């Protein structure tokens, strides 16, 4: 009963969040979180549920972002149309790719997605007539306030979570899972695995493309290295999925929150807390130690990734029981 209520409580909390927390900074971080919820749950559908691990989400993300940007510069439309057309163009990229590459399995498929990512980045860089190359696309943000962006992102995040949930509740969901568990067995049962893998990819690509269009609208500037980034988009999507919990309904949502919050936590040295405390203590060694920690923030983040994968291989949601056990045990010991 309680467990079922959690998503609704979370949603209610998210709905009032910007009304309570007026700071632009936290609203901005929450917009990023919600964008990553969309990307993460899309990745989770194709990789977590269908077992086809994509290392190239940025290809769809970037396509969506470029669609939104080009609608403005080439046609003079509003970039918000990108939310619709960005999804469609991402699907147009995903279809031929999936048709060709779903013959491949495991590491081969992962490598093919990696290559798609790189190819899309190069095309966006080289085809200057269409994309303006490295000059990038600058558009005017529609709203000065963060609120509209926040609620649009929230709506998209909810839509993507519901979409994944509905798909997984339908018969497609069972086919996806059977492909993940044992592709050969699924095929011998008469499931057209190629067909269902395509369906899964198309939904995932569409959602990711929409997230890309959202990024264009919100950030106002894109260039090929930003939106087709292997490290910052594709791998970040996998991190969101795995840290939250692969193949779980709300894993990507939790993962997105953790990744954005933790990355920012490290970058700012505990939101500036570490250096403030160090200065308050007045000790030279503590101050230099705090500088050391703040300077090494990416290293700290990397170590955290390593530790998280080592000890929570199924993600926070997947290993929730393990975490509660650990916490409870400590409490018993402490008490």
């Amino acid at each position, binding site marked *: 009963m309680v467990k079922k209520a959690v998503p609704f409580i979370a949603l209610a909390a998210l709905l009032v969040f910007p009304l309570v927390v007026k700071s632009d900074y936290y609203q901005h971080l929450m917009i990023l979180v919600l964008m990553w919820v969309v990307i993460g749950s899309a990745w989770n559908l194709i990789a977590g549920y269908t077992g086809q691990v994509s290392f190239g989400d940025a290809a769809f993300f970037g396509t969506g972002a470029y669609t939104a940007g080009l609608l403005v510069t080439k046609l003079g439309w509003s970039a918000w149309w990108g939310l619709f057309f960005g999804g469609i163009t991402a699907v147009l990229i995903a279809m031929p790719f999936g048709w060709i590459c779903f013959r491949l399995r*495991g590491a081969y498929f992962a490598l093919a997605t990696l*290559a798609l990512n790189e190819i899309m980045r190069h095309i966006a860089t080289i085809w200057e007539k269409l994309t303006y190359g490295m000059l990038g696309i600058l558009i005017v943000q529609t709203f000065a306030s963060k609120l509209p962006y926040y609620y649009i992102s929230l709506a998209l995040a909810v839509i993507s979570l519901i979409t994944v949930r509905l798909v997984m509740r339908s018969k497609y969901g069972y086919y996806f899972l059977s492909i993940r568990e044992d592709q050969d067995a699924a095929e011998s049962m008469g499931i057209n695995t190629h067909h269902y893998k395509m369906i899964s990819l198309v939904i995932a690509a569409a959602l990711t493309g929409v997230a890309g269009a959202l990024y264009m609208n919100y950030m106002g500037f894109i260039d090929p290295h930003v939106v087709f980034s292997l490290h910052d988009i594709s791998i970040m999507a996998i991190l969101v999925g*795995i840290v939250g919990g692969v193949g779980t309904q709300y894993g990507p949502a939790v993962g997105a929150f953790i990744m954005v919050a933790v990355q920012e936590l490290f970058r700012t040295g505990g939101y500036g807390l570490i250096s403030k405390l160090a200065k308050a203590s007045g000790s030279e060694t503590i101050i230099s130690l705090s500088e050391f920690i703040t300077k090494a923030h990416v290293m700290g983040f990397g170590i955290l990734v390593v530790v998280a994968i080592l000890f929570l291989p199924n993600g926070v949601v997947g290993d929730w029981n393990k975490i509660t056990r650990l916490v409870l045990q400590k409490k018993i010991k402490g008490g």
Partner: protein
Amino acid sequence: MDLFLQALVSGLLRGGLYALVGIGMTLIMGVMKIINLAHGQLMMVSMYITFVCFTSLGIDPYVSLLICMPVLFLIGVIIQKYLLNPLIRVETILPENQVLMTVGIGMVLTETMRFIFTSDYKSVKTSYSNATFFLGNISFSVPLVIDLGFVTLLTWVLFWFLNKTDTGKSIRATAQDKDAAILMGVNSEKITYITFGIGSALVAAAGALLIPIYYLFPDIGGEFTRRAFVICILGGLGSTVGAIFGGITLGLAEAFGATYVAMEFEDVIGLVIFILVLLFLPGGFRRLIKI
């Protein structure tokens, strides 16, 4: 004609180095079935070791192969034993945890080096760094030619190891069929970390050979990881001979691409070959040569 020959020579020479990068990656991929996304970062670490050897101890980069290869072998073994193997044992839905682990390792390696050496550019300037000789109008870079010799030597040693020694044979057996190898009494865990160690040592050699003609900063690794995976696919996963072909093909493709198309297409050409291979030759070049 000169243009053509120059491209051919440049392509072959750099292809040799790429082959060394690729063989390391392909070995790891063959045995563990994972993409090592920290491969270039390991190379970067080896370059820093060579740099330190050269600047503070005055050791020639070629001699420092004897230092950086064992060190990287050790690092590789530690990574596999304490960071990657524990992941095999736990039940997870996806095997990609290990790949992500290599991403994390790559980040830590990069930032550690940035911490020690800052982001400044470093270079190892030897007396022969810019030495060249000419055959006709074609320029040969002396260090690259020597490198090619080292690459040949190292691959020959590797082949001898894989084909003649027990450990080598076990590695090949594990790559072909892990379960069968375990049934035959192969200690698969030991094999995995020896393989990762060898893979790291090989890419370490590539780093040490490259540094006299290149430069160095902490973020250099990513580029080489990217090249390594293209080489692996070209050659077919887990095939060492294939990786040599893959490396040379990539080197040639880049050189001819830069000469006859445009240098901005350099990487694209590698990737297009990659897609073509995927489409028409799913097993990579291994299919053609049956090794």
